């Protein structure tokens, strides 16, 4: 099966800090891949490289075999790669609905200056999307007034609204309380399964990765030190040491 996302010899340093070195990995259509690693192991940097926010010093990024290394985030997004953020990147001055509508308009490539954003059909779809994330009750609220957990979900919802082929999530459960964690992930998993979106998510929480990913990549100081079945990978002592810093 051909790779949806593939990186070849991806390398990026911040001064002396190694964020990625000779990083080779591939994600195939329909997979749900988790990336785990301690802080500073290069997880987020990898997402930034993959989406064109940062440029690698060496190596290439291939999307469906097409080289996207030189492209800016918006071009890569248009090619069907959406992304959510560790710290939600939202429009605090807008209502939840407006933000979602904007994502939909963007997906359709309809950023015009005349036809109104709030079209009935679009509103319908927006409400559906929000409903999937149990955010529909918040539709008319200002994003600035949302609780942290809902912001996190909305951040992902806005990405999903783009109907991407590949969704990259940066610590979807960061900032979510341990008890809600699995609830949130269940909601997500459901949505992603229904919409059949290939998913790559970064996590530092082993249980989450164990439970929601079919495959796990372990990052350590910019290197992939393990790649495989969650159960077997996460069982490995070296991995636990790398991720947790102890056995």
């Amino acid at each position, binding site marked *: 099966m051909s790779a949806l996302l593939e990186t070849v010899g991806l390398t990026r340093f911040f001064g002396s800090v190694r964020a990625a070195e000779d990083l080779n990995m591939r994600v195939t259509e329909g997979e749900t891949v988790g990336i785990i690693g301690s802080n500073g192991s290069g997880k*987020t940097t990898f997402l*930034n490289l993959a989406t064109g*926010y940062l440029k690698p010093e060496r190596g290439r990024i291939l999307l469906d075999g097409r080289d996207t290394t030189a492209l800016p985030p918006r071009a890569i997004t248009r090619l069907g790669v959406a992304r959510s*953020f*560790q*710290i939600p*990147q939202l429009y605090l001055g807008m209502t939840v609905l407006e933000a979602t509508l904007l994502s939909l308009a963007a997906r359709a490539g309809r950023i015009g200056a005349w036809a109104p954003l709030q079209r009935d059909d679009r509103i319908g779809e927006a409400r559906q999307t929000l409903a999937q994330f149990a955010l529909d009750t918040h539709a008319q609220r200002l994003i600035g007034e949302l609780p942290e957990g809902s912001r996190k979900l909305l951040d992902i919802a806005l990405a999903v609204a783009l109907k991407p082929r590949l969704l990259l999530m940066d610590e979807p459960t960061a900032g979510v309380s341990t008890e809600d964690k699995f609830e949130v992930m269940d909601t997500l998993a459901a949505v992603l399964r229904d919409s059949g979106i290939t998913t790559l998510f970064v996590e530092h929480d082993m249980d989450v990765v164990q439970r929601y990913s079919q495959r796990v990549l372990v990052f350590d100081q910019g290197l992939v030190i393990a790649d495989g079945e969650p159960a077997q990978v996460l069982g490995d002592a070296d991995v636990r040491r790398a991720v947790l810093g102890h056995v």
Partner: protein
Amino acid sequence: MRLLLVVGLDGLAYASWLFLVSAGLTFTYGVLRVLNLAHGNLYALGAYLGATFVMRYAATGSTPALTYALLLLAAVIIGITVGPLIERLFLRRVYSRDEEVQLLLTFSISLILEDVVKLTWGVSPIFAELPYTFLGRVRLGGINYAWYPFLLTAVALAVGGLLWLVVTRTRLGKVLTSVITDREVSLTLGINVPRVYTLAFAAGAVLAALGGALTAPMFSLVPGVGAEVLVTSFAVVAIGGLGSIGGAALGALLVGLARSAAVYFFPELDLFAIYLIMAAVLAFRPQGFFGEVEVRRI
């Protein structure tokens, strides 16, 4: 050859002036990240007060040598009174608000100061040339130069050097740098950030007023000098990169030389020299020569 010398000298003289009037603007921005649109008015205040001192003093007929001290005094007085007043009373309240609000605030202050000057000193030109004429002239490249502009060159070098020393060599400098690089962290380190801000703004004000005071003996003062100076010094600072003293120096030098060259070779371009350079620089290097671009952490 001789022509080049003359062009160079005029350029240098003008550059020194440019640096003096723009150093304050870039310094304040460097620390507070607020562009002070009232900069030009602080300049005007310094100029008018300096001129008043000089003229009062000249009337007594005692040695002109002291007038230079008076100019400095005027600058300091304006800087340490008006500066902190603006920062404590107004700016302080809007640090948390959007950048455009901060701009609007300094804009409204500049409007007010504009009339304060007009009401205090009237509208007729004021000219305190004593410190200028007292230094007499020197013959360079076959023509007469007044010494005064080269005094400005010396002052400019002194000011630049002083700022550099303070920032790089002193404890205060370390404090400043830490406040600039990360406000929150500095707070946790127990640095009294609000005080640093007031100090920095006052320092910027003193520099602005000094630029004005030292200008008073060269140009006559008329209402509205402030606005002119603001635009000019912004151009200089933008070329060098907002917040960078070295940048201001480089910008001043470029503009100064360009303008004097224009006067000699394309008199019709005199007016635009400064803007042409700014447009050219920014087109290729948006953040100016020494300006740094901020990347959002995500």
